[in-house]
């Protein structure tokens, strides 16, 4: 699902991680999220973008405004055509990492946001979609 309101941020280097989270924060502020929620969203984007750089080398972060009945929200989609995640269930466990990092990535991102969805298959890439709704 792509619309006119989509903001794509190409992720190729660690500089793009900063760019993506800044775009995410300003969109969140525009939508009326609190500073605190904007920080949670920016932090989640930072982690997702870093996963792209670390595991896939390059990919795309797409920011989108959500309008559903009476609620407003923000959606962040991180997609890449990297190696994919062989065992998604394992990757969602605290403390699991294949790159020698802290292993807080995905479970941490899930805690920062309201909704979390992951599609990944080995050899084809990974798409992670997270959403946060305005309270």
């Amino acid at each position, binding site marked *: 699902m792509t619309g006119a309101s989509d903001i794509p941020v190409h992720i190729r280097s*660690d*500089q793009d*991680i*900063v760019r993506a*989270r*800044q775009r995410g*924060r300003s969109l969140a502020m525009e939508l009326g999220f609190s*500073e*605190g929620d*904007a*920080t*949670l969203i*920016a*932090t989640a984007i*930072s*982690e997702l973008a*870093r996963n792209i750089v670390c595991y896939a080398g390059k990919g795309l972060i797409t920011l989108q405004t959500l309008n559903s009945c009476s609620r407003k929200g923000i959606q962040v989609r991180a997609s890449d055509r990297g190696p994919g995640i062989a065992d998604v269930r394992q990757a969602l466990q*605290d403390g699991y990492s294949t790159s020698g*990092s*802290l292993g*807080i*990535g995905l*479970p*941490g*991102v899930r*805690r*920062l946001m309201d909704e979390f969805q992951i599609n990944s298959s080995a050899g084809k890439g990974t798409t992670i979609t997270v959403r946060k709704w305005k309270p």
Partner: protein
Amino acid sequence: MEVPVLKQGEVLIATFQAALSDADLKSLRSNLIAQVVKLRSRGVIVDVTAMDVMDSFASRTLREIAQMIRLRGAETVIVGIQPDVAFAMVQLGLTLEGVVTALDLEEGLAYLTNKFKNIA
């Protein structure tokens, strides 16, 4: 973006900007340890007041900096973690365990001064 490092007596003060990339953090790590060795500093304060996001990489790098500097016999204090940033860090499971933190620059300097007095 370079992180400015100031020398104040026996203490080095590094002030983070909002938008630090991983490369900036890595260069700060090597720059700080080099300065601590060169200037024989006894304390380091890392001021993160302006930092917009403290993610897993930033937090790990800060912990590494503190550990390296401790091995040199000096002490590191992280100051100025904003409430929103602290909340996000806890949600992510980043606790900066083993690293001294203080409210702001003033408190950080007071902590180090007190520490130096007790050792001397």
